[in-house]
């Protein structure tokens, strides 16, 4: 399409800072703090916060909250460690909550 300016992206809902590519989505069927969330292999322009242990639906994980680099809005978290074998695939990946990101259809 001659119209498209760039790749399909997701941006911070607050400041429209580009945080992820559509191509990096691994799964759309995750559950965040308040609703649906996406699992991504890569996120950009985000700041990773301090690590903490959390009990999630799928068990104990070490996660770190991720913040938009521009406006510091909490967008989701990053899986640092998973303690069950079935959850290991999540390590190093990012969760972005659907309510915090906006699809850029440019």
């Amino acid at each position: 399409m001659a119209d498209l300016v760039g790749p399909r992206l997701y941006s911070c809902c607050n400041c429209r800072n580009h945080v992820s590519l559509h191509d990096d989505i691994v799964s759309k069927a995750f559950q965040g703090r308040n609703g649906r969330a996406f699992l991504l292999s890569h996120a950009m322009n985000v700041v990773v916060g301090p690590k903490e242990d959390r009990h999630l639906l799928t068990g104990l994980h070490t996660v770190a909250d991720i913040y938009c680099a521009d406006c510091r809005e909490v967008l989701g978290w990053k899986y640092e460690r998973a303690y069950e074998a079935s959850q290991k695939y999540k390590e190093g990946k990012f969760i972005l909550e659907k309510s915090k990101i906006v699809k850029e259809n440019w």
Partner: protein
Amino acid sequence: MVGEATKLSEELNLCFEKLMMLGAGFGGKTGGVKMEGVVITEWKDIPMELLLRIGSLVDDRTIIMASGVCSGWRDAICLGLTHLSLSWCKKHMNELVLSLAPKFTKLQTLVLRQDKPQLEDNAVEAIANSCHDLQDLDLSKSFKLSDRSLYALAHGCPNLTKLNISGCTAFTDHGLAYLTNFCRKLKILNLCGCVKAATDIALQAIGRNCNQLQSLNLGWCENVGDVGVMSLAYGCPDLRCVDLCGCVCITDDSVIALANRCPHLRSLGLYYCRNITDRAIYSLAHSRVKNKPGMWESMKDRYDEEGLRSLNISQCTALTPPAVQALCDTFPALHTCSGRHSLVMSGCLNLTSVHCVCAIQAHRTATSIPHPAH
């Protein structure tokens, strides 16, 4: 695919290095070139001014793509971009505006004219929330926009000097009047086809608020009447170009008001204003007599004060030759000759004898050569 990409990036890197070598005059150290104290090693390091200069040479789509390359380029372009046009967008203009408005906060000129109506109120609201320096906005043919956009622009873009909302048929006079209350610096306003917006109420608001107005296009606004145009003439003494084509309700009173109150009037369109009679034409001629510059005015002032340069009285069938000829004689800039045709009288079959001075001279010199039919 991967091989092609690496080959391209290798070529780009070579190109970059060559440029840097030239810049350093072959005395550059390895690993970078010093330019005004900043070491340039990669594309992301080129100075903002240089990037913006390059940006001014490429088309709008490219500059938008460039703003997504890296955060350094994004910040440079967002701080420096002042003119942008998105009229090339065929399908996704609304989403594009929603993405770009929060970033390009320094925009002064924005062209969003559409061939296919795509723009919606939320996009204009996004512009109004971010681009407070906006001076020139073109929203022509945005059929989907409602008064919500006008309210948003009123609050967000008070520095507007040029606004084109021609073809935005859903705007009403309430929205337009509200806008003029806040955007008082308007100089050029195009309301062609805005039938619901351009009413006497709106024109009265414009006359009250936008006293610096120079150009107003009210083409095909059937609800415009004498009350509105007279308020306009009284409120906006700097009017230079007024287009009333298709404003079928107006009568001589409107033209007389414009002639008397707007000494800088240069261009007037009265196409299809069937109620216009010789009275209006004579008042235009008399206004010139009143405003004629003195002998000692500079050449520039003389040019400015040549009076009416362009007049369209097509289909004004009530006019007679003596009146229009007097007008043509009074204003030297009105021409009927083919080179500089500015007095347009299509459909006025009784006015074929009216000629400007140059047309008569041309007639006299060419005696033996037959003239082609006009």
